[in-house]
């Protein structure tokens, strides 16, 4: 896990956060770990960028934030995907897929 990890690809953090939250509401740390887990440790999330992105997405109306008590009796800020957020995720996913297949085609042509 220590070796091969990279920072999240520029511009995809928002999409990854939205995707993660589409599965279940989470707090900041939870989101970071989940992204790392699902990507099998390929992506490493910078906490500063993550928390700022959360702030931005919440302001944009794609997430709702709520303070909840956690299991160990601490308060944590949980984020939930809104309907607008789900729509945004769909759009970003479609957009991402288009780009990826385009890049893939280009690379194949090259080879």
């Amino acid at each position, binding site marked *: 896990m220590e070796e091969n990890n990279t920072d999240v690809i520029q511009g995809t953090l928002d999409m990854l956060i939205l995707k993660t939250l589409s599965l279940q509401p989470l707090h900041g740390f939870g989101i970071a770990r989940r992204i790392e887990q699902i990507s099998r440790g390929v992506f490493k999330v910078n906490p*500063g960028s993550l928390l*700022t992105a959360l702030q931005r997405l919440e302001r944009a109306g794609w997430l709702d934030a709520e303070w909840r008590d956690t299991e160990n009796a601490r308060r944590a800020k949980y984020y939930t995907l809104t309907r607008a957020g789900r729509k945004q995720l769909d759009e970003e996913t479609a957009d991402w897929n288009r780009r990826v297949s385009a890049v893939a085609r280009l690379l194949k042509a090259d080879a």
Partner: protein
Amino acid sequence: MRLFRQLTRGLRALTNRSATDREIDEEVQHYLAQAAAEQERRGVPRAEAARMARLELGNATNVREQVRGYGWENVVDSTLADLRYASRRLRSSPGFTFVTTLTLALGIGATTAIFSVVNAILFDPLPYPHPERVVAIREFGTDGAPNAGTFGMYRAMADRARSLDAIAVFRSWQPTITGRGEPERLEGQRVSAGYFRALGIAPAMGRDFDASDDRLNGPRVVILSDAVWRRHFQTDRAIVGKTVTLDDDSYMVIGIMPASFDNVLAPQALLWAPLQYDLSQGRAWGHHLRTIARLAPGVSIDRATREVDALGRAVLAEQRPETYDAATRFDATSLRGELTRGVRSALLAIMAAVALVLVIASVNVTNLLLARGVRRRGEISLRAALGAARGRVMRQLLTETLLLAGVGGTFGLVVAVLGLRALVALSPAELPRVAAIGIDGTMFAFALVVTTLVGVASGLAPAIQAMRLNPGDDLQHASRRTVGGLGHTRAVLVSSEVAIALVLLVSSGLLLRSVERLFAVDVGFASSNVLTMQIQATGHRFDPEGATGRFFEQALDNVRRVPGVTNAAMTSQLPLSGDADIYGVFFEPAVPNDPGSLRGTFRYAVLGDYFATMGIPLRRGRLLDARDRAGAPLVAVISESMARRRLPGLDPIGRQLRVGPAGPYTVVGVVGDVRQESLALGETDAVYMTPSQWKFEDNPMSLVVHARSDAAALTSAVRAAVWAVDKDQPIVRVATMDALLTGSAASRRFALRLFEAFGLAALVLAAAGLYGVLAGSVVERWREIGVRSALGASRGDIMGLILRQGLRLTTLGVVVGIGGALLATRLLATQLFGVSHVDPLTYVGVVVLLTLTSIVASALPAWRASRVDPVTALRSE
């Protein structure tokens, strides 16, 4: 939704910063705790787990700042902080703040006030629906100057021009209203039926004129303005359909115009009656009406011009071949342009002048800021060394200038409002569209834009200066050891101030000389101790043949007997009063090489010793006298320049001439030329006859009274003498001839006054700028000066050093300024009279004035420099 969230979250952060900070902090702490807990679950010891968590997170403060830095409210926040800091700084140097704010307030205020006037007059559309379709129809004579319109041409165009929706002619009308308190002569207009339709405004109550109203001996109907309706009829709605008495006749009120109706063609007109033109008087082709029209929808001014030109020439060629030639042409032109034609160039020149004053004011502020920037180097370097980004420092400095400009602009608005009032109060009578001048949104928007521009423009150089600083250098050299002249930028700026001041001073100098020359003009009559007033014979008692003439003769007899009166006479038109009664004059038989009556000839009917009373000299032949009564052979006196121009090398005495439809008259004398229209326009043709030998009745007449001493003091006695004949006759337009003379140059004086004010402001600002720059340079060169005097430089040497520096800057400015003035004063060409725009005397005078001023401005810094004590200067580090 997004916007709402952005707004509420941002506002919350702004209003309750600590709560949002706490939340961010809590979130970061939670992240840390979770990360540590995770490590602990993997069996890492607690202390090590906490360290690893911190490692993962990085600097917690940085993370907090990063998260906190998101959102628009931070921009607001830092701007507020900048503003607080800026206002602290400005408060800490009240002298600087006062001077710059005052400079900017005056600059911005004057510019805004002038802009409001110029904008309202030149650029605001006329207050009518589709104002771009309202045009003036003009006829140009052989000399290319526009003539007044004729009724004949109006009729032809009304019948045949297809590009016009409505066309109208009008002339002024001054009826006397009676039956409701004191008789009062009102200002009004006689208009053809389409007048209000051409403007596009319908009466608020009642009906508009229609074709059946506008025919000779048609119904006596009148439309009232809102003002007269309020003043004379107490807004009585039932007045429509009732009659009012005007000039002893009953007129039925058929309509009331809306209060908002702004009659740009005659702003003083209070009521309107149909023109009811009398074609039997044979004046259908006399140039004495003005013509306006409304273009049909979709018709361009060009197309309308093509049509009216073709139509007008065809009609003239067919019906008036004797006045038609190839140079005659017609056009349609924007009414707004036509109204403002005379003042346009003067207003634009004034606008340019005030903009230059504003530029000088901004440059002054820039220079003050630059000088202060030098003194603030230490502070700025320190901030840069502590990690402030250059952009951030620059932003802070710009905020400071913008705040300064904002305060200046706010006071500037006060200046603008006061200035606007003063401008309207002082404005010459011939200034059109004064009603449109007012305080409005455009004015505020303009002030805001100007303030921002000034703030950015004057703050940019100082901010760039600060950016160029190298913190290391300056922290080490905070004691300003460096020897050197003055910053290049400041030298250029102060020289440009001098250059601009020179341009403004030369302009005002040229205007001053023009006005001087104008008043040195020989008007052709003696104005001192002459009182004038206009008398009208109104009412049916003057219907009988000759009654009007008898009234004027009796009134004149009475006035002559008033003690203190040395001579008195009456004239149908008074020089320099705005009267213009113009006819075509033709010699019979025609004279070979007669260039013709191009611009028309002023026709005067004069009663009594008019020439003696006015001091108009007789050149040849005889004057008009008691012999020239009705029934006697018709005789006329013509002006010198008319004799010279129309009858070159011929004896005018005994020639026969026709004046419009009247005559033929035999020329019996030649008199001196008189300036009729304005001081600047000379060489006008004039023909004089007695009222009883004129075809029509002249009414009103102007009384001219020559007094032994103070003419104005005789006013009430003269009035009483007239009223002794008939107490119901209104007397208006009472003025001394001297006052008319002065008033006739009012617009030039107005422009002159403004230019003088701007020139003076420019001079003071430039001097202040020079002083400020030199004083700053003395402070910066303190040590150098100390070294110089320690090495043996005398006080005179040191003073010379600074004075030379000042003179160098001035000379540079003067050289550039002369070039600028040579170009810029061309704009003034139409305002100049009898003086060339390159008049050497004016230029030399201004250069001397500027040089002397700059020496005065340099003297104090030079003296201070000479007092530098070398010991203190060298020890002060």
